[in-house]
């Protein structure tokens, strides 16, 4: 840590958002003042809208609505069946499955939720950290792909014992993600090139670069294969399962939790994090007070890319170990933006948002399988939650709540 700065005093956030996460009294006050209430109501509103969409497109509901005048009871029972079925499937997929025997089987959905949330948290931290320094990192996809390819290359290209091989692959992935995002930071610092353009473009460049490596023998393509896919990962780089072989939950979730802690410390307790936030609040003022803004851009993008890279590593070495492909990012790079927004770019917020979206993802798949409801309903609910949470006055107006006491 550099010594040319005074120890950062705990910085008060701008007036409308007075609570630092992690301060107990702050959290308590927030609940009392009703910001947490807004969050809960936002989720409720989003779920209501989601339910309406399910109802409007449900065949039974539409059929019974045709003779609602004659037999309204049919209509209402169709409505309640559609809703109960959908949400109980969601619950069974995300938290606790009452339909199978044995505690292990019943609790498995919860571990699936944690598994899905790990990459969302990691990538969300990467996007959120950049936000805090005033940078918009839309490049999650490219960073994840590059990281996955690098980790996969170390994985299949070397033959080492697990204690060396696994850490090496993880670090290689994180480094690749960091460098890929670092390009955007470097160009921003050097020439003022807009990071939104550069990260979007790097997504495409990274995609085709990895595609090329995957379709070239001797680079990443599985020997003798014609498909753009690498060999499966060997045992020595696969992230260990946390709860035994019956559960898919792997060490990636622990990595995500550690990352939350590290980023929290970085942002709230370190001089570097102070510089990030200072640049994010006002780059001109930061420059005037002696902060090297360009260097801060580069550092923050390197760290952000490393975090997003870990999400890619989590996929390739933990969740989808059958080999590197060009769609291994599974949209997480973009989901991460909503996670960061919902978590208000704060590490603990991102943790909570990642868990929520992980649950929706796990539940969404089960809802699609059991009820035939397209899994995209989850996207709708997710985006509505973020929208409503971002507009507390709207939510208050809808529920006729009093205005925020502190406003």
């Amino acid at each position, binding site marked *: 840590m550099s010594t040319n700065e005074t120890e950062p005093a705990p910085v008060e956030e701008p007036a409308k958002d007075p609570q630092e996460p992690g301060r107990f009294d702050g959290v308590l006050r927030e609940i009392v003042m009703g910001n947490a209430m807004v969050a809960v109501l936002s989720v409720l509103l989003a779920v209501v809208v989601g339910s309406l969409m399910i109802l409007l497109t449900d065949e039974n509901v539409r059929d019974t609505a045709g003779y609602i005048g004659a037999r309204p009871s049919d209509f209402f029972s169709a409505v309640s069946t559609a809703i109960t079925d959908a949400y109980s499937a969601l619950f069974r997929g995300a938290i606790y499955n009452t339909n199978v025997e044995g505690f292990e089987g019943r609790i498995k959905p919860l571990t699936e939720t944690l598994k899905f949330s790990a990459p969302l948290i990691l990538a969300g931290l990467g996007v959120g950290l950049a936000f805090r320094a005033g940078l918009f990192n839309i490049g999650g996809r490219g960073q994840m792909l590059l990281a996955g390819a690098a980790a996969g290359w170390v994985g299949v290209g070397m033959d080492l014992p697990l204690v060396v091989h696994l850490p090496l692959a993880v670090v290689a992935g994180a480094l690749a993600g960091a460098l890929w995002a670092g390009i955007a930071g470097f160009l921003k610092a050097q020439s003022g*090139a807009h990071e939104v353009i550069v990260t*979007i473009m790097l997504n495409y460049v990274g995609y085709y670069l990895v595609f090329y490596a995957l379709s070239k023998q001797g680079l990443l393509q599985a020997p003798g294969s014609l498909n753009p896919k690498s060999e499966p990962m060997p045992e020595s780089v696969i992230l260990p399962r946390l709860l035994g072989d019956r559960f898919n939950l792997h060490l990636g979730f622990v990595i995500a939790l550690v990352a939350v802690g590290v980023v929290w410390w970085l942002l709230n307790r370190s001089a570097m994090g102070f510089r990030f936030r200072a640049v994010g609040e006002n780059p001109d003022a930061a420059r005037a007070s002696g902060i090297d803004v360009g260097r801060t851009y580069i550092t923050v993008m390197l760290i952000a890319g490393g975090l997003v890279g870990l999400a890619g590593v989590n996929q390739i070495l933990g969740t989808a170990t059958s080999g590197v492909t060009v769609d291994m990012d599974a949209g997480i790079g973009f989901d991460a933006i909503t996670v960061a927004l919902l978590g208000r770019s704060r590490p603990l917020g991102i943790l909570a948002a990642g868990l929520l979206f992980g649950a929706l993802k796990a539940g969404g798949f089960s809802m699609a399988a059991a009820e035939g409801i*397209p899994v995209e309903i989850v996207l709708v609910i997710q985006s509505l939650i973020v929208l409503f949470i*971002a507009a507390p006055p709207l939510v208050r107006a809808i529920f006729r709540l009093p205005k925020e006491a502190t406003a």
Partner: protein
Amino acid sequence: MSTTAKVPVPIDESAEPAAVPLRTALKAPILLGVVTMLVALLIAFKARAGKTTFRLAADTDFFDLPAVTVPSTATVATVVVLLALGTAASALLVSRGRRTPLWLIAIFAVVAMVGFLAWAAAGRTVPVVGLLGGSIALAVPLVFGALGGVLGERAGVVNIAIDGQLLFGAFAAAIFGTVVGSPWGGLVAAMLAGALVALVLGFFAITYFVDQVIVGVVLNVLVIGLTSFLFGQVLAENPQELNAPDHFERIPIPVLGEIPVIGPVLFRQTILVYLMYAAVVIVAWALYRTKWGLRVRAVGEHPKAADTVGIKVNRTRYTTLLIAGLIAGAGGATYTLVSVPQFGEEMTDGAGYIALAAVIFGRWDPVRATLAALLFGFATNLSGVLSVLGSPVPSQFMLMLPYVVTIIAVAGLVGASRAPAADGVPYRKG
């Protein structure tokens, strides 16, 4: 809500003085020099024997231009000499304290492209008309999207939701084009769908002061979710009744359409392309030459001042945003009312983000943004054409090219671009 997710649109951070600093000015000759070297390397290390033919004719011209056949290596060598001269001219200008003019860079780029094609297509024929005409067709949604983006941002509202507007437009066009039974119905529906997304954007960003970047990103996700959900639940079951619109036919313009090269490229297109020409001209004119445009720009640069002289800031932002939505929505119609009249999930494939890049690349100017969008269209089409011709470069690198060029251009030539001063800042009266 106040959030630390700061609006990432740049406030002119480096605050460069009006006179061009040497370091910035030097970028152009250095970049041109690098390109010259790269083209020279092509013949130095991987010279290709044979002749390259540039086919200039289309079938129905007044008269047919003969195809131009040139020896590959000699052409590239000539091109390298020309490029070296261009670099020298740029260096000379910079050494005299001037800036490299845009036309010089444009000519340089065209010459470099000819050299590259002569090398890549050695022994084969380059269909020049198809290459350029296809580029225009591919650029249509990007141009519409970029125009919508420029308008919104000039009024001070960052529009990241271009992708959502395109996708929702495409979706509405498919359904209403089918139900109404005419592509015109589809086009109107697409425009209204784009405006609807804009209205939601305005509702949250202008009325509720929500961070515009957040609303934009979230609206994109929302539209993807909504359209994919409805596609899976409704469209996929009744494709004939809901997802089979009539499409616009090509309309050759008499006389103009028969000029060699230019005619088939520009004037034998669908009505959407002609609407695009009109939209570019009208937006540029309206923004710079009308009272309304002056107000829009005032609201985007200094809302307080605008308010002081009696301009209704938020009302102006709303109307501008709605017009922008209509335009972007029309771009979405190109996906479902032209070549493949059918909606598919996430069919815009992030084109709205490319349009956003064109907005910034084009420095928030409608004409420059249009040119940037055309550049993207050209690069995409070029990679397609070359992969058909069987170029020696792996197809992935060809496909990568437009994006690499953009990064180089943004970092090297455009540099720190200045957004409208109040871009992304909600206006609270009082």
